[in-house]
């Protein structure tokens, strides 16, 4: 006995039934960091859903004469190069940035998860094949892949609209990012696969679907979850890089990435135009990562 804290003999009579998730919740409830990041997340989500709650100004209305004017009581974050209100653009940018970050992550998780689970579950040659395909995708330089997919999926001649542009960027991020997640999912599932309860389920005659969805997936989620939260953050940043190269999001879309890419060079004349969106972006990334960390710490009994 080396873990006296595990207190295996929970009194059989005490309290209501609690699930592992509820236990996790109990731990989370007492974490300051969780509440801070949770509050921030809610703020960002509300911002994304109802930007007009935060500002009455239009993010698109440009008064060129006010170009790069610094923050004032009139415009809290000042004006950008085109003379648009930086505060309004930062607020409205949240939606795109969060949607791109979250959906690209969801895409990555789905694609990578499916491939990883299949590779781990079926093993043998299929595992090798999928792993090799993943290597090809990881090996191809990111920017090259992005240009090619962006160029061939939504050729500019077709004059893609907002939704199309966002969809394509999301697809690009997911298509180029899935192999990493597939690896994580694969190793998590392989670990879970050798657990006794999977053997027990097989002995009961459970089919592959039941084993994967009831037994393997729920027990492989933690590492995927943690990676996913970091990924949301890095995707929001990657979106900015693609914008800088002129192949990512672009007008008429409003996003933090575009704002940063457009104004990084102007930092000396008007840092505010870049700094405020960048601060929001960093805060948002921090929010997701902290949330992921908090949940992971709470989920993982080893780290308690």
């Amino acid at each position: 006995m080396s873990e006296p804290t595990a207190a295996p003999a929970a009194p059989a009579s005490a309290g209501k039934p609690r699930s592992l998730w509820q236990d996790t919740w109990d731990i989370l409830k007492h974490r300051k960091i969780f509440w801070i990041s949770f509050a921030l997340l809610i703020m960002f989500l509300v911002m994304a859903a109802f930007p007009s709650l935060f500002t009455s100004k239009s993010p698109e209305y440009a008064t060129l004469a006010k170009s790069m004017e610094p923050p004032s009581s009139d415009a809290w974050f000042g004006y950008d190069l085109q003379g648009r209100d930086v505060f309004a653009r930062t607020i409205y940018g949240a939606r795109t940035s969060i949607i791109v970050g979250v959906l690209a992550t969801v895409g990555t998780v789905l694609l990578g998860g499916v491939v990883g689970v299949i590779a781990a579950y079926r093993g043998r040659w299929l595992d090798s094949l999928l792993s090799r395909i993943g290597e090809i995708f990881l090996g191809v330089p990111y920017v090259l892949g992005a240009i090619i997919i962006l160029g061939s999926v939504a050729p500019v001649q077709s004059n893609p609209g907002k939704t199309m542009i966002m969809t394509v960027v999301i697809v690009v991020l997911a298509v180029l990012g899935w192999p990493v997640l597939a690896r994580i999912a694969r190793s998590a599932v392989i670990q879970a696969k050798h657990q006794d309860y999977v053997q027990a389920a097989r002995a009961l005659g459970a089919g592959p679907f039941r084993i994967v969805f009831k037994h393997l997936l729920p027990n492989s989620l933690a590492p995927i979850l943690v990676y996913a939260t970091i990924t949301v953050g890095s995707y929001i940043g990657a979106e900015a890089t693609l914008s800088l190269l002129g192949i990512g999001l672009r007008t008429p879309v409003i996003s933090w990435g575009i704002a940063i890419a457009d104004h990084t060079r102007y930092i000396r004349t008007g840092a505010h135009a870049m700094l405020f969106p960048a601060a929001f972006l960093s805060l948002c990334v921090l929010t997701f990562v902290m949330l992921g960390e908090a949940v992971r710490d709470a989920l993982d009994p080893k780290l308690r």
Partner: protein
Amino acid sequence: MRVAKGAQIVAGTALLALGVAACGGGGSSTGGSGGGSNPRAADGTVFIRGCEPQTGFVPGNINEVCGGTINQFVFDQLIKYNSDTAAPELSQAESIESPDNKVWTIKLKPGLKWSDGSPVTAKNYVDAWNYTAYSPNAQNGGWWFGGVEGYSDVATEDPDGPDGPKEAPKPKSDKMSGLEVIDDLTFKVTLTAPEAVFRTKLGYTTFSALPDAFFKDPKAFVSNPVTNGAFKFVKWDHNSQIVVEANPDYVGTEKPKVKKIVYKMYKDDDAAYADLVSNNLDFTELIPPSALAGDKWKSDLGDRAIEGQQGVIQTVTFPLYDKEFGGNADFRKAVSMAIDRKTITEKIFNKGRTPLDGWISPLVDGYKTPGACGEFCAYDPAKAKEYLDKAKAAGYTPPKEYPIWYNGDSAHKEWVDATANSINQAFGPDAGVTFVGKAVPTFAEFRDIITTHKMKGLFRTGWQMDYPHIENFLNPLFKTGAGSNDGLFSDKELDAKLHEADTATDPADSIAKYQEAEAMLTKEMNAIPLWSFGLQAGTSKWVTGVKVTPFGVLDPLSIAIKEA
């Protein structure tokens, strides 16, 4: 504790990275090693900003600015343009004469030499021109000789276009009948029709001579040329630098003041600028928008800043071949009047560009004020709306979203967005049309869409003069079927007027006719003039006397190293 320090550094750097933003408004940089001796003086070398040429040192094959710039350093042409006034002056030619603007007799100065010691002869010119024009040689500049008699014998068109199955037939001859060597220093050029601007054109790189050495091994020449200019070629490290050094045998009136010029290649204008500010680079003619903003560059560089004009204009063009986006004349005028050129040039370019009210660069022969465009190039939201209504009444319904296209790989986004915003705000929210800046990722794709006539919306066009003459801004752009008539504009009257101007023998008369032609552009307004380019350049504290030509490049003879 050893490790603890490391962590503080990590944390510190991250905080620093944020902190820097707060002190972004700092003054001019001290840079360099802080005065004292001039490091350039020791070996007389200066470093200027450059970029990797697409083709090597064969003047007839060059058509982009990276190669063009360095070629101008090493090749002299028959004439050169004055670096202050852009006026053509004789350079290698002693005289260029024609009684009728059709037959030209060109005499070379005596004693001109190639860098391998051989003399520059009339034959060198005739051979070079024939080589460039001969279509199997696939030289980019071949079409420049289209006006020379016998050009059609040396250059054949591919009957099916570049993608067609048939090869172009082999030309009848490899020599143009219009070129004739009279003696060692004289040759005669016969044109198919009189051309008033022929003399002015001769300063363009394509009209350079080629030494005999070239014809022995054209391939080797590409990267190791024998030249006749003020500087001679030393070495070319691809993607990194080209080095040229002063030609001791140069016979021109003005001699190089530095021993060596290193043409250092940059991928990024900001990087070059950062090097300039810290005196690691001695000259750049590209001050990035970030430094132009708020006139930072002037405070950064102080008296090292150079301002001027260059023969480049910015326009946007309508795809007249497309019904939906081509619009009608009133719509096009409405758009033009909805663009606040003044505010854009002030805010986006910090007055680095000048609003245009015509289609001609202010630098060239034939420019006049007020410009031909007149009221249609003046910002007037009320009138713009009026014309928009007129356009609609005439049956044109603009699409809901109207793009302005540009290539995303260089710095156009800011002004295109500003232009779109200006139009939108002038038209008002009820206009039923929203202008949006849209980027085509690369210039290659952009050009491809333009040349295949698939543009759906306004698109960025611009013109950098080849030689300083009004003709250069009209013929290639607006003549029916002209090479750079990207919007497929066609106006028979205009074509006729241009032909008149082309063949007029009196230069002044010719210019007047070109101006008349320009005025006719207001009728259709197929392209909207925006602004002409100013010139912003800068030098390090180590050099002096730097002049920039109207073409926007360094005059290599002007640059000199400061006395220590």
